[in-house]
């Protein structure tokens, strides 16, 4: 299979995934709550008012019509109006997504090099004390929930040492550096969670590559150790790690509810959380679907990157 066909197939698969997600989201948010108007207006409302609201929202139409209406508008960028703010959902979502991406990007830029470096160093010292320290620390940090680490970090760096601001919100028009300072503390709990995963993958891949016959071939050529590692070990060792990193990207963007709430940050996680609390269904649906889109794109990028780096997929089999 040639590289282009591989990518096209992956794109097609992603579209199928997104379509399935849209069906699930639609059913979950629009159908399961039953009477939408009643859910919004509460149990004491006049049935006529409920019926009127249902009609106004269009939820009294057949399901397929509703789904088509909703999904076709979503695809063209029209995500409906928020029931709470009485305004189009789009701009809210865009702002929240941009905020989440900023936080995710900082966490990502911190954790990927750290995780890979830690994993490779551990692999080079496999079985020794340094390996144990990195592995055990990584694993321990992974199991600490973000709200625990967030609060500990706030107490140490925000309250006690007063090095960093305790809230992620900054004043309107703040410069990039100020924004970065505000985002550093929220990013660290994410780094702590992900470091273990990435380091473990990088370590496993490197240990395997160091033991591989092709590494022996390279050593037996008389190449300096540095060249052996850079040319022969790492390119093969880190391929599987890329996939793991990309799936974690999805988490970084979608799973930040806790961190965003603790640090009062207007990201997509807290947006969805608030929409769910306020029964703002259009906001909720679009938000979840948006996370799905980001997740899918991240996975797609990982797959394409993997195929670009892996000649077996890039060039297919023997001719």
């Amino acid at each position, binding site marked *: 299979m040639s590289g282009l066909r591989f990518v096209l197939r992956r794109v097609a698969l992603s579209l199928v995934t997104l379509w399935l997600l849209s069906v699930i989201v639609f059913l979950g948010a629009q159908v399961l709550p039953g009477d939408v108007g009643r859910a919004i207006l509460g149990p004491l409302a006049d049935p006529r008012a409920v019926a009127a609201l249902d009609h106004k929202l269009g939820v009294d139409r057949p399901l397929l019509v509703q789904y088509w209406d909703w999904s076709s508008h979503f695809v063209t960028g029209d995500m409906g109006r928020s029931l709470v703010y009485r305004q189009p959902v789009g701009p809210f979502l865009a702002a929240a997504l941009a905020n989440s991406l900023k936080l995710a990007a900082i966490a990502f830029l911190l954790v990927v090099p750290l995780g890979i470096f830690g994993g490779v160093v551990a692999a080079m010292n496999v079985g020794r004390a340094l390996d144990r320290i990195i592995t055990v620390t990584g694993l321990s940090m992974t199991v600490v929930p973000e709200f625990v680490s967030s609060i500990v970090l706030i107490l140490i760096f925000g309250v006690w040492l007063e090095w960093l601001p305790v809230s992620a919100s900054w004043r309107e028009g703040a410069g990039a550096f100020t924004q970065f300072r505000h985002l550093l503390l929220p990013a660290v709990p994410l780094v702590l969670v992900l470091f273990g995963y990435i380091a473990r993958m990088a370590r496993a891949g490197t240990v395997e590559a160091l033991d*591989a*016959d092709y590494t*022996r071939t390279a050593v*037996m*050529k008389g*190449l300096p150790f540095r060249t052996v590692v850079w040319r022969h070990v790492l390119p*093969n060792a880190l391929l599987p790690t890329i996939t793991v990193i990309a799936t974690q990207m999805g988490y970084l963007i979608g799973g930040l509810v806790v961190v965003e709430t603790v640090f009062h940050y207007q990201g997509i996680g807290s947006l969805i959380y608030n929409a769910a609390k306020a029964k703002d269904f259009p906001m909720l649906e679009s938000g979840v679907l948006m996370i799905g889109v980001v997740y899918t794109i991240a996975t797609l990028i990982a797959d394409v990157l993997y195929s670009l780096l892996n*000649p077996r997929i890039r060039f297919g089999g*023997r*001719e």
Partner: protein
Amino acid sequence: MNVATPPDALAAEGLDVCYRVRGRDRVVLRGLDFRIRRGESFGLVGESGCGKSTVALAATRYLPRNGRVSGGRVLIDGRDVLELDNAELRRLRAHSVAMVYQEPAKALNPSMPIGRQVAEVFEVLGSPRREALEKARAMLGRVRIADPASVMVRYPHQLSGGMQQRVVIAMALAIRPSLLILDEPTTGLDATVEAEILDLIEQLRREYSTAVLFISHNLGVIAGMCDRVGVLYAGRMVEEGPTRAIFEDPRHPYTVGLLRCLPRRGRSKAQGRLDTIPGQLPPIGAQITGCIFAPRCVLADDLCRAVDPPPVRLSDGRVSACHHHERAPDLPTTAPPARRLAVLVDQAAVPVLSLDHVSKSFGGGAVTVRAVTDVSLELWAGETLGLVGESGSGKTTLARMILGLTGPDAGSELRINGRALASHAFQRHAAHRKSLQIIFQNPDTALNRARLIRRLISRALGKLAGLAGAERLERLHALIALVRLGERHLDVRPRQLSGGLKQRVAIALAFAGDPRVVVCDEPTSALDVSVQAAILNLLADLQAERQVSYVFISHDLGVVRYLSDRIAVLYLGRLMEFGPAEAVFSGPHHPYTEALLSAVPSVEGGRPERIALRGEIPSPVRPPSGCVFHTRCPRKIGAICERDVPQLREIAPGHSLRCHLHLDELGGAQAPAAADQASVS
């Protein structure tokens, strides 16, 4: 070191190596002494676990983390390898010593183009990138890669196994090393490819006057390649000397036993059992007083069990570590000489298995892979049908169709005892399913690791024979006795058994339902020769006792010859020759059969003149026109071979082949070929 004479390419002096396992040092090599002179080729043989590869790793200082040299020295070019600092060690590896090992696919970096990998060797020696690539291209040409420029930009997975090994050899010999270490370099390759690779190594080695340490479990390969040979047993060099002398007149009971285990050329099961070596290798690090081989030696006496025999220097430069080396040649055989009645095939009856115009193609449209094309075969009760051919010849697909794992194309007909056989196993009658069983190459992966042997066999008896309770228990004991396993082997898990014992369990599973046909897919390829002999004996005994038939697949023609009554030679999914084993081997035979036979290395002194096959097996997507073998045939007549598909014709009763050549012109024909009467039949 003597200044006047150049130092040896490799010298081991009292070399001890141990591995640290669970906090204890376990000795793997003990007091190894041998030297390889410059330009000499030295073979190291022995069964798995005897420390062959450890010698290579110690010599190149590439022992695993838990291994270390605990005594003695290794010298390459007169320099003590263990004394070198890192920079010197790198220089030694870059300039003086190179290594080629098994599984070329793994030895090459999967994410780097071939050209760059070969060029690196020259870059280490100081060539700039461009020049290194140029030299790499030239070197690939030297290992007879037809189109070096296109191979340069490819990745390892795009090359065949033989090509990959050529690339590895190119990298190894590019530096013109004084010592080349070859660790099972052709194991896993087809016999035809193996022969080519061996020829290539031999030629380049002479040209570059490189000394060789050749490690192999295959005695035939060593016999054809080496000036001298050393026999390792449990980390000890038990015998060493000139190859001819060792193979023709071995002076250590272990060497004698190893050589007797081999099915010699032309030997068949009708001529009796193969000899085996009783017992098994002592566990690594075992403390044994006296001779290490004594527990398995028929000649062992009190002296052997008390005193470790010192190496004794014999005439013509041989060394044997045996107290009774003068008696070794008269070692009594362990096998009873004859044991079975010849199988009488009632030709009037129906064959137990018959294949009628069986074909199988995969895919469709432009990329149809024709794996098997129009194969018709018969298998009679109590007979073995050997399937022979290079990888890609369709052997495995044919076996899978017999087992119902792959459905044949429409128009194919399979019959068992004259009754039509459904194409897929799940459509078949239970009776048919249990009549057809398989023994796989690798018992490690064929047996469920989590279950006790008792449970595995009981389950097979329950499923295949429909037995339960006391009856099943009774049959269980009968079955393990049948495959010569003991009561103590029942309550263990597969990993606690040796390879040979595991294969016996696999055989027991296959025989649980009293099968009529057992497909044996390379059943002894993963086993050592002494174990192989025992398994072959067992298969032959079971056949004689139960009149079971085998479809036997193996790349080892000696093994196929030993067990088979008839042989089918496949090439690109077509039946090229089919006939009684003896006739197929002695000839007249098909040019392809002839080439396969000539590629087999043998311990009986040098190979016969090898018939080289040009190139590689063509793609089954676009098979050649006419006779599919014409692109590689050394006896090709001319246009007719490219144009007309030769018919399968009977040249003797029950012996047919597919070739345009006249009977007299075929290889192995009794009458000398009348060259001037080039007639076409």
